[in-house]
């Protein structure tokens, strides 16, 4: 019942938060220079199975995504291959500039262990209450499905909704009469 509910919820009022990502501040630690984060996040690249985000020195990845406005995060989709796709994914809301050393110092806002279904595209529903007021999201990929040296992520998609905030661009000066 709840699974069906959450599935329909995605279709109803949740949107793909791709449009609200602030690309100038997006960072990824330990990514391979040839296979970078854009391969997993950007429209078009993420649909391409040949283009992956790959880790470099070891299997962990630390992704930092700021948003242009405050959002509520409902669910995420993380897709990858069966062996080298991510397994344990920890999410931190509103933590700036984390590093691998302090990633275990804070409790994550939510943890997702990806099953083979998830890795194929099934969304992971998050603890909505923890993600009500998100300015930035840090995704820590701790290990992968087969514990290999390199983690490969094909797609990362975020679903949620925006909080009503003022769009400064829409403000117009009131004419004096």
């Amino acid at each position, binding site marked *: 019942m709840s699974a069906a509910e959450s599935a329909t919820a995605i279709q109803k009022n949740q949107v793909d938060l791709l449009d609200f990502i602030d690309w100038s501040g997006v960072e990824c*630690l*330990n990514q391979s*220079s040839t296979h970078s984060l854009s391969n997993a996040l950007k429209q078009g690249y993420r649909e391409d199975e040949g283009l992956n985000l790959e880790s*470099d*020195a070891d299997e*962990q990845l630390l992704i930092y995504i700021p948003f242009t406005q405050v959002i509520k995060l409902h669910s995420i989709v993380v897709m990858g291959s069966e062996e080298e796709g991510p397994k344990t994914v920890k999410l931190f809301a509103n933590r*700036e*500039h984390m590093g*691998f*050393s302090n990633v275990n110092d804070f409790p994550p806002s939510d943890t997702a262990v990806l099953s083979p279904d998830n890795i194929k595209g099934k969304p992971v529903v998050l603890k909505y209450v923890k993600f009500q007021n998100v300015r930035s999201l840090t995704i820590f990929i701790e290990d992968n499905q087969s514990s290999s040296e390199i983690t490969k992520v094909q797609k990362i998609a975020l679903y949620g909704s925006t909080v009503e905030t003022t769009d400064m661009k829409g403000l117009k000066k009131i004419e004096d009469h």
Partner: protein
Amino acid sequence: MVLEATMICIDNSEWMRNGDYAPSRFQAQADAINLICGAKTQSNPENTVGVLTMAGKGVRVLVTPTSDLGKILACMHGLEIGGEMNLAAGIQVAQLALKHRQNKKQQQRIIVFAGRCAVIACSPVTHDKKALEMIGKKLKKNSVALDIVNFGEDDEGKTEKLEALLAAVNNNDTSHIVHVPAGPNALSDVLISTPIFTGDGEGGSGFAASAAAASAGGVSGFEFGVDPNLDPELALALRVSMEEERARQEAAAKKAAEEASKQEKGGEEQDATMTERASEGTSEADNKKNEIADDDNTLLQQALAMSMDEPTSSQDLQDTEMSDAAAEDPELALALQLSVQDSTKDSSSQADMSTLLADQSFVSSILASLPGVDPNDPSVKEVLASMQNQSEPQQKQGEDKAPKKEEEK
């Protein structure tokens, strides 16, 4: 102009007392560090630099990353030498210092001066290499770049270990290693040309250039010992005068060579305006000679040989001819004046020149005044003819006058 936070790790171990780098290893290091700090802060005003020492009682951070150059230079004073350097601990502390930098947008970089490296004292090479590779991997994971300055002696496979460390850290060529052998060159001078200073191909080279001039004090890598940055006008003036001198020397050398080999052709010119004709003249003279040889016209050859035998006597004649001509022809005198004047005037004066050139008598008298030139030489006449290609009838006139001149002689 990369925005960067840099931590410099100094080796202040006992081995730095050695004088194989003038004046002492430690002083050379200090000079190099001063230069690096200056270069970094100049290339981007928001860059920060910090310093720590690796030997002594333990790793000690002297100054956390700051853009205040004075603070950095001040802390370099009164540093004591002693103990043994601990590379692993030094790098780790540097990494921590960079992690807590104030401006998180800065790229992280560590510069290590490895004089005498004992990672874990008296350990076999393999163990050290492993430990260093782990450190390198950690640095790469946290996107920290590493520059290593390898100086001093190479014992216990130090170079090997450092290369392994660099290989582990290096991501897209952002990290470098420089090996500085002992010798007369100062450590800082060697470093200036390396990527450590030039910052991956851009940025600090301007500062490095002026620093080189200042520190080297005379023995600089610049032409004329003057730095273009410090005194561009002087450098430009020196360069121009050097080029003029070179051109003058080349012309003199050319003249000497040609006089020696082609005196019988009489194709040597001194006047600047005539230089082009001279080169044409000599080339045509060569052709002429070939033709003569092919034709096997012995008589003509003898005539040429005769003219070669008596260049000096003909000169006097030609000089008198010239003065007579000038006296006779006030128009000619005027023409001479014009030709002496500035040749870079407008095309109107050029037109005047060309009309003057068309006057065959004028030209031949000019040529007569020049030493070593035989105006009656048919090759020279050909050259003149080709110069006057604007007016074909003039050419014919020239040809008519040529036999006349020969008759005169």
